[in-house]
């Protein structure tokens, strides 16, 4: 009966435009109400809706002989690079990233997607070199505007910043929708919704992500935030790894593949905004470290655990401090643990 009623509501909503999320909202109202405000839901903006580009109508950046300008023209923003008499000008296609740390732009040129060489950094309120391009000298005016992405890289880029436009390593720009959405993590939500509409409880089943242990959660979140395996395979070490939270978390001494108390979602609710009240995370630590459990407790402080045990780390060139998710006892003067 309950399924039948839900099915009626779902059927009505299914006829609408941005179907998936609205369809999901019919049953999952709480999650659907809070999710649009999350950084994940705001991982990509169309140019006409991008607040940073609207609020900064004339961004300038000088790099060696190249001068880059991002200028607002109505609902569009245009990247223009000049070097002497040479000029390259192209409209921005999308803005990637919410902008809390930074925002990078993509444009389409010569049949390929390019990532802008200049990114907006919140801390600077201005443009600077995109983090992946630091140390690479542009060889042409087009390269000064952006780095040509391979088709696979472009598809991967949009797979994490948007939904609907990337399937099987191929990018379909026509169907790109901004931000991460329900199906990005939950999979075949259309099938699920159709089964609910049809009253087919068995077919409506989706993987219950809330039951996942730490390792599987890391693998899921790591699809975009990078898994331990992905980073380990690159051999990357040093502060550059601090951006990749599942990798850092896995390297924590307290990480246990089977323990739900140390999984990503033990601390972060993916359907809600990031909780910036650091004391609120104490209870997460106490789930393991407490006198009641007769486990090791901190001899220095009783609150704000993360301020010491998950220090903020400056990532060179990122103009932002990232929380190091490798939970540990931090010793004064120690080097960044790999």
């Amino acid at each position, binding site marked *: 009966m309950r399924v039948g009623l839900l099915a009626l509501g779902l059927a009505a909503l299914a006829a609408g435009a941005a179907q998936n999320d609205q369809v999901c909202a019919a049953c999952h109202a709480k999650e659907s109400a809070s999710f649009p405000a999350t950084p994940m839901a705001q991982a990509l903006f169309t140019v006409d809706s991008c607040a940073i580009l609207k609020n900064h109508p004339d961004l300038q950046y000088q790099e060696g002989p190249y001068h880059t300008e991002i200028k607002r023209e109505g609902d569009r923003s245009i990247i223009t690079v000049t070097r002497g008499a040479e000029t390259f000008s192209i409209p921005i296609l999308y803005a990637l990233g919410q902008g809390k740390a930074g925002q990078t732009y993509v444009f389409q040129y010569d049949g390929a997607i390019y990532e802008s060489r200049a990114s907006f950094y919140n801390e600077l309120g201005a443009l600077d070199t995109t983090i992946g391009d630091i140390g690479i000298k542009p060889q042409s005016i087009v390269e000064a505007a952006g780095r040509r*992405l*391979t*088709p*696979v*890289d472009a598809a991967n880029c949009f797979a994490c910043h948007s939904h609907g436009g990337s399937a*099987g*390593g*191929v990018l379909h720009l026509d169907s790109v929708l901004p931000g991460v959405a329900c199906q990005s993590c939950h999979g075949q939500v259309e099938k699920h919704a159709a089964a609910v509409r049809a009253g087919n409880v068995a077919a409506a089943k989706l993987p219950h992500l809330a039951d996942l242990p730490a*390792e599987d959660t890391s693998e899921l979140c790591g699809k975009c935030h990078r898994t*331990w*395996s992905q980073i*380990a*395979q690159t*051999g990357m*070490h040093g502060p550059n790894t601090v951006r990749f939270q599942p990798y850092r978390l*896995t*390297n*924590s*001494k307290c*990480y*246990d*593949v*089977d323990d739900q108390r140390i999984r990503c979602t033990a601390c972060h609710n993916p359907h809600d905004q990031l909780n910036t009240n650091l004391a609120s995370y104490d209870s997460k630590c106490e789930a393991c470290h407490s006198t009641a459990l007769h486990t090791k407790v901190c001899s220095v402080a009783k609150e704000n655990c993360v301020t010491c045990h998950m220090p903020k780390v400056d990532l060179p060139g990122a103009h932002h401090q990232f929380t190091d998710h490798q939970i540990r006892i931090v010793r004064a003067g120690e080097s960044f643990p*790999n």
Partner: protein
Amino acid sequence: MLVCGRALAGLAGFILLTAGAIWCQDVSSPETILRHAVELHQAGDIAGAIAQYRAYLDQVPDSVMARSNLGAALSHAGKFPEAIVEYQKALELQPANLPVRMNLALAYYKSSDIAHAAAELERVLAERPSERQPALLLSDCYLRLGENRKAIDLLTPLQQQTPADKALDYMLGTALVRDGQTARGESLVDLILRDGDSAEAHLLLGESRMWANDFPGALAEFQKALAINPQLPSLNGYYGTALANLGDDAGAEAAFRKELAMDPNDYPANFQLGKLLLRTNSAESRPCLERALRQRPNDAATRYQIALLDLQDGRTDEARTALENLLRENPNDVEAHISLATAYYRLKRKQDGNKQRAIVLQLNSGKHADLAGGTSK
């Protein structure tokens, strides 16, 4: 391979043994049956010849000549596994019969069992070190098996004897480039190009660029080769590999499929296509990787990809075994340690998984601490 067709044509002379010593006997006598079999064979009635050889061998099972002729007829009919059995039986009777061993090698080669073909050719060459055609065929086997150094050792003296042989230059150049001796390899390309533009030369130059991780440069060379001869063996496979390295998976897949349409057993195309399809189409990836492994039975890269496929398909214990074996051979293989950790976790062997991850972190940080009895993080 360029040389292969010519080598095979030359070696075909080994195939049919004559029955000159057969005397006219009664209609039902074994000798009459054999003579009839040979006549049918020479007249091109292969099915009839096979039946007559079998009938003769029922009565005279120890006839090396009949066994060998039956093997040749079966090979002609494309029945290589059966041909191999007959040649092997003939060699049990006469182990020193080199023509039969050569035919056995050819049957293995044609059935794409390159490892066994190489083993038999090595035995032929051990007896006849100056024979050129078995040496060329063996070199081709070595190239297909990825044993480039062996191909170089075999081809270098031959090239010195016949410096104007472009096909030989090409094979040796290929082996040198694949062995990382690009400068020496490219000097042979110059010899090949002396008589005009050639697809083989551009393929070789492309391989050389790939070796140096210059994928755009490699792609340009492969495109030149394709413009001259799009049917050149292995060319589409290498072209696809360059495209894959440049992030054009769709283009790469199309190129690998073209190569496999021409040669279903091409190692690079099977390996690369299997690897490419691993995440999206495991049902098609597996046969590609298995074909690649049949070409190079000990190839670590292929075995690793199959282990990844097993992990993905839930065949965790098979993956674990394969990864453990790979790590026994190469304990510093970071990727294998990473995947083995995943396998252990799935098998609920948490401590073993943690140990693998600890090894990876140590290998990545360049430390060489003694990991014996290593603990979890």
